């Protein structure tokens, strides 16, 4: 009798899961978020095998480093999307890799305590979502003026660095000098800082395009993008556009012989 009931409950749970998986973060915003950015009829599964690395308690909400480690079976993904439930700008970036990538990292803005999501679209068209709930101690990463910082380079200045990893693998680190203004910051005199941010980024090398990105101002000022590749990039080049039509580009320094 008892086991029959348990079985019935389990069967019900499985049915519910098939219809729509329960958000592990329990966010009431998830359904709308998923519909808006992953598609209304998208098939979505929460996937613990994706590692979304970041501090779980954040004080500097203007610049929160995150790193997504992609499991082996998803490295031929179609797309990866970074989302923040409780941001005024929920979509941070959409990345379309043109070769296998092992991880993606960047620094992002968090307006308040929120779940953060990394959604990976596999070859069969299913979204695999990693979730991490983050406590934001000082709110306003999107809506308060940033802490002071020396502005040294020109807008659109690109810095590229490559680091060796094990077995010939490499890590590509790209920094674009840009204010990434959200349009939500009101200055003391009442003026609103208008939105101004990087919209597209292409990363390529001699073998062709590595990844194309669409980006929004939920990325931090002077965004840093990290991509792990199974092999070393050759003569890496980065180009892109911002929301005022400025084109920018930069190339990896020729290696010192």
């Amino acid at each position, binding site marked *: 009798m008892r086991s029959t009931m348990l079985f019935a409950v389990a069967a019900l749970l499985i049915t519910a899961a098939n219809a729509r998986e329960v958000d592990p973060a329990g966010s009431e915003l998830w359904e709308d978020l998923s519909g808006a950015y992953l598609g209304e009829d998208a098939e979505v599964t929460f996937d613990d095998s994706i*590692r979304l*690395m*970041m*501090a779980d*308690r*954040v*004080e*500097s909400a203007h*610049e929160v*480093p*995150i*790193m997504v480690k992609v499991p082996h079976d998803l490295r031929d993904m179609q797309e990866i999307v970074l989302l923040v439930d409780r941001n005024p700008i929920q979509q941070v970036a959409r990345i379309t890799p043109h070769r296998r990538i092992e991880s993606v*990292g960047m620094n992002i803005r968090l307006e308040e305590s929120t779940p953060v999501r990394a959604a990976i679209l596999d070859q069969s068209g299913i979204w695999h979502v990693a979730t991490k709930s983050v406590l934001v*101690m*000082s709110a306003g990463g999107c809506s308060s003026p940033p802490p002071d910082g020396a502005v040294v380079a020109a807008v659109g200045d690109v810095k590229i*660095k490559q*680091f060796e990893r094990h077995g010939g693998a490499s*890590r590509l*680190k790209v920094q674009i000098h840009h204010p990434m203004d959200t349009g939500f910051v009101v200055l003391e005199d009442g003026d609103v800082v208008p939105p101004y941010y990087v919209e597209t980024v292409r990363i390529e090398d001699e073998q062709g395009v590595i990844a194309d990105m669409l980006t929004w101002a939920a990325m931090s000022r002077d965004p840093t993008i*990290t991509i792990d590749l199974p092999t070393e990039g050759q003569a890496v080049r980065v180009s892109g556009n911002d929301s005022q039509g400025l084109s920018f580009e930069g190339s990896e320094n020729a290696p010192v012989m």
Partner: protein
Amino acid sequence: MFPGSQNALTPDNGANIANTGFIVGSREVLAIEAGPTHRYGQEMLAAIRSVTDLPVRYAVITHRHPDHSFGLGAFVDAGVDVLMHPAEAAGLVREGPALLDLMTTLVGAEWTEGTSIEAPSLMVEEDRLVDLGERPVDILVLEGGHTEGDLVVHDRTSGVTFFGDLLFIDRAATVPHADIGVWLTHLDRLETLPWTKGVPGHGPVLEDPAPFADTRDWIRFLRRRVADAVRTGESPAEILDPGVPTPYAGLVEVGPTFSRAVLQLYRRYETMDPAALDALVDQQPPD
């Protein structure tokens, strides 16, 4: 000595987390630190007056951080000469107002009411000796380590020494203004001073220098870990995600301090050239 609470800043402790104290001569009194709020400074003065009728002549503020300095208005009001390193005084005036707002958010306005950021009256740029009346007291200047100019107070008569935040015991040291290499040399120097009892900025009074390891190991670890990450292109996210490593996990306030320290040091080390980074990673304890 007035011990501070080994906790975060909370409405329960009114930001009273740092140790403070005073030394009585035959003529006058020297206070160490002003505490975190005007209210604390007033209570501290009242407590000193309950012990001695001699006038409080000096208050030495070891460095700019709010838990040590924001009570200075009470001492200024009482006509006490407030001593500080000039770089720390400038930093206090510059950074103080924003930090006072933050403190008020954390502990509540009933604690911080009346607190204002004021400039100290006497600048201490090099070691000096003050005489409180048959009680010579050294004020030592240790620059560019924990902050731009930390002051250490050494009572020659009793050997009691107030180390300020050059020393954190049982608690994770903070590094927003620190040069860890210089700080370590300061710790070596402090260890050899002829002190009998040592009062750290945070934590229990010391009888011997063994607990210096609490500060030394932690800041060395921070330097090595972050410099290595910058050198290999590791993201701060990858340092922070696994949490605080076991040997340090028991330190008070280590979680938030670790996150803050990693981001602060990462930003600083990112601008260094590879050879300098290698040197930071390779500097190991001497034994």
